[in-house]
């Protein structure tokens, strides 16, 4: 099956051109609108329906940076069920430490401290992600492959932060 970037005739990028995607989406929505193919045979109508679905999915994915990130990693088989990426031990230690302190929060002050710490880690991570993804489409194939592994690593580290942020939200609701 055609991937979303090919479908919209744009280069694979973590920051695809939003205006262009919108334009393509509208143009293809029109082209594959069932009403314009009402007299076609069943097979053709089925094909149009599939293309119209593909167009909707492509648009939903490509217009959301988080979905683009996951989509590209999946295209390259870097995010899959049971994948076991090795995260640095010091990162796991840091996450363990924050989780442990989260469990022992007793005051709004401690809550604020941990929230600030998590926000700082998140800021650094976003910055790192941005610098890794910004020029991705200009790299050659070998460099892209290496870059994707680094990006996947951040993608997984973000999952830990997400989890911690969920716990923080639970605490916030209780305080």
């Amino acid at each position, binding site marked *: 099956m055609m991937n979303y970037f090919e479908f919209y005739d744009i280069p694979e990028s973590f920051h695809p051109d939003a205006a262009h995607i919108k334009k393509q989406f509208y143009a293809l929505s029109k082209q594959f609108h069932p009403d314009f193919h009402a007299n076609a045979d069943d097979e053709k109508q089925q094909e149009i329906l599939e293309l119209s679905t593909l167009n909707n999915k492509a648009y939903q994915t490509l217009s959301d940076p988080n979905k683009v990130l996951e989509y590209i990693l999946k295209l390259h088989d870097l995010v899959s*069920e049971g994948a076991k*990426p090795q995260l640095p031990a010091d990162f796991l*230690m840091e*996450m363990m430490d924050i989780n442990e302190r989260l469990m022992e929060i007793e005051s709004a002050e401690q809550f604020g401290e941990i929230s600030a710490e998590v926000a700082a880690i998140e800021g650094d991570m976003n910055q790192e992600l941005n610098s890794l993804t910004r020029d991705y489409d200009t790299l050659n194939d070998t460099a892209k492959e290496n870059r994707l592994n680094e990006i996947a690593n951040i993608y997984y580290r973000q999952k*830990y*932060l*997400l989890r911690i942020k969920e716990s923080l939200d639970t605490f916030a609701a209780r305080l």
Partner: protein
Amino acid sequence: MAYSDKVIDHYTNPRNVGTLDKSSHKVGTGLVGAPECGDVMRLQIQVDDNNIITDAKFKTFGCGSAIASSSLATEWLKGKSVDDAMKIDNMDIVEELALPPVKIHCSVLAEDAIKAAINDYRVKNGMEPIELEKSHH
């Protein structure tokens, strides 16, 4: 998804939660993570002069199955020799806790944590770390 009674039992009443002295040469610490769901697990063993695990502790931040898997693992570890501990297979945990297929990775995490703890203990005591096969069930 329904958890089995055993998972619920370990989850609501986890055994051996806590920490052992990481700096002691008798203690091995394994810290592992399951990035796809943001789980992190620490499992520690204390080994006596006869190579028997006398104590085991864990701390897991993750789903019920991950907590139950590590809780069960610490129960099994106590009293076992290090060599026997090495033989604990993730499928034993799956079977005991009746984990559904989507939660098998939680048992894999527990097995990895056991092996990481044993290797930490081995390295601390001048032994070669055991080469771990990458494949699991």
